């Protein structure tokens, strides 16, 4: 599917320079809050307007795996966005830590597998 235009979400500027825990109760700047307040509204908008959401992960202090898993895997698990929708409307950029892109892809696949069960 060909998307019309691009939207950008820079995690450092739009959320936090110090992403933290998985859930809000575990600490500040959590993946859960990022998903609920930033990522999910943006991806929903991208899907409805047939746009591509580009999420830029660079410029932060660094990421815990739980933050990323909750933020991206949680879209499938909690917000019922499908893997195919994310494949068409989500793009991740990480020049400083290129392995994060593969990590997130595997979290999405895991979440899609669990959702299918």
């Amino acid at each position, binding site marked *: 599917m060909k998307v019309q235009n691009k939207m950008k979400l820079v995690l450092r500027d739009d959320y*936090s*320079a*110090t*992403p*933290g*825990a*998985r859930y809000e*109760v*575990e*600490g*500040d*700047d959590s993946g859960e809050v990022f998903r609920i307040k930033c990522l999910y509204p943006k991806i929903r908008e991208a899907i409805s307007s047939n746009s591509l959401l580009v999420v830029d992960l660079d410029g*932060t*202090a*660094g*990421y*815990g*795996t*739980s*933050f990323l*898993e909750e933020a991206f895997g949680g879209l499938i698990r909690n917000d019922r966005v499908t893997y195919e929708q994310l494949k068409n409307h989500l793009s991740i950029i990480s020049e*400083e*830590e290129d*392995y994060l892109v*593969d*990590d997130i892809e*595997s*979290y999405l*696949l*895991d979440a899609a*597998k669990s959702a299918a069960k």
Partner: protein
Amino acid sequence: MFKSDFYMKKYYLDCGYIKNHKRRAKKKHARNLIHKAWKRRANALLSGKSRDQQHNSPRVSKKAEAILRGYKLIQAPDNLSFINNPNEVADFIWQLKQAFDQHQKVFVVLDAVMQIDYGAIVVLLSVMVRFKSFGIEFNGNFPKNYVSRKLLMQSGFFDNLYKEFSVEDSYQIKEDKYEGICTHAQKKVDSVLSSQIISEACQTIWHENRRCQGVQRALIELMQNTNNHASIGKTGDKHWWLSVYHDKKNKSVTFSFVDFGVGIFENLSNKQERSKFYNWKEKIKDKLFYGDNSGLLRLILDGSLHRTVTENDFRGKGLPGVAGVMKRNQISDLHIISNDAYADVGGDRYIKLTKSFNGTFVYWKLGETNESTK
């Protein structure tokens, strides 16, 4: 005689004045007696003897005093290094834990310590705060060895030995950021604190502000692990402790992280039915051989356990994530101790300990040759 003297004399002889003066003198005398009695009691408490007795007897060592006052003496090993002498240090921690569980006041005998490292220091500090916050008396003496004594003094151990502590969610011992050892304790995942610690470390190593995403990941994974897994069935129950030592001369910073939770293997044995790792032994029995817990730790860190149990691709969550950070050269000299397993991850050395450590201890170094982002 001046006129004023005449009036003052008359005043001193006045009945009202004399009565008032006598009353005040009596009160003051009573106060003095109370203070003297208090001082006598305080001296007796501090040394086990009255002041007169102290003056008339030869000096008694703090260790002997501790015995007199009913402390349990716990001898620290000569080599108080968790990395180089894990068995004896694990035994030492076990004795401290026993005393803590029995609410027994403790005197830690450190005078024979010849070697100490930052890992052992974070353990000592955390144990001290645990004792004090629960109102259990905790005392100790100085190592005779100059280097060990200096390190312990830099850590703020002796400064805090006589302080009061209460049960709190976070502690900070020694706030001096660029000198010696700084120790933090919390129950939550604090990514802002870890980021600040890393900035300070970068100043020591590169003399400029940099980001070390690998160290940040390691710290977040460990904090998250403590928060989620240190107690079985509870989250946010235990503190994590982190000591950071800045070695300006060698341009390196040492991180020692410890929690006194159940440890990796106890946690693994108690996985609930909803966990991916429930019944893991059965799932790997014909596929992986590990021998003891040290072999199992190797499988955990290289991801084989996760891959085999879950049949999913493994992207290094938790402790394996920390090992991944080392593989990417973002940290060096990674050591992990949990329960009866010891891993020198960089040296690929996995050993079963004779004494089990209740908790998880992780140590690594950050230096000039490690990856960072300007």
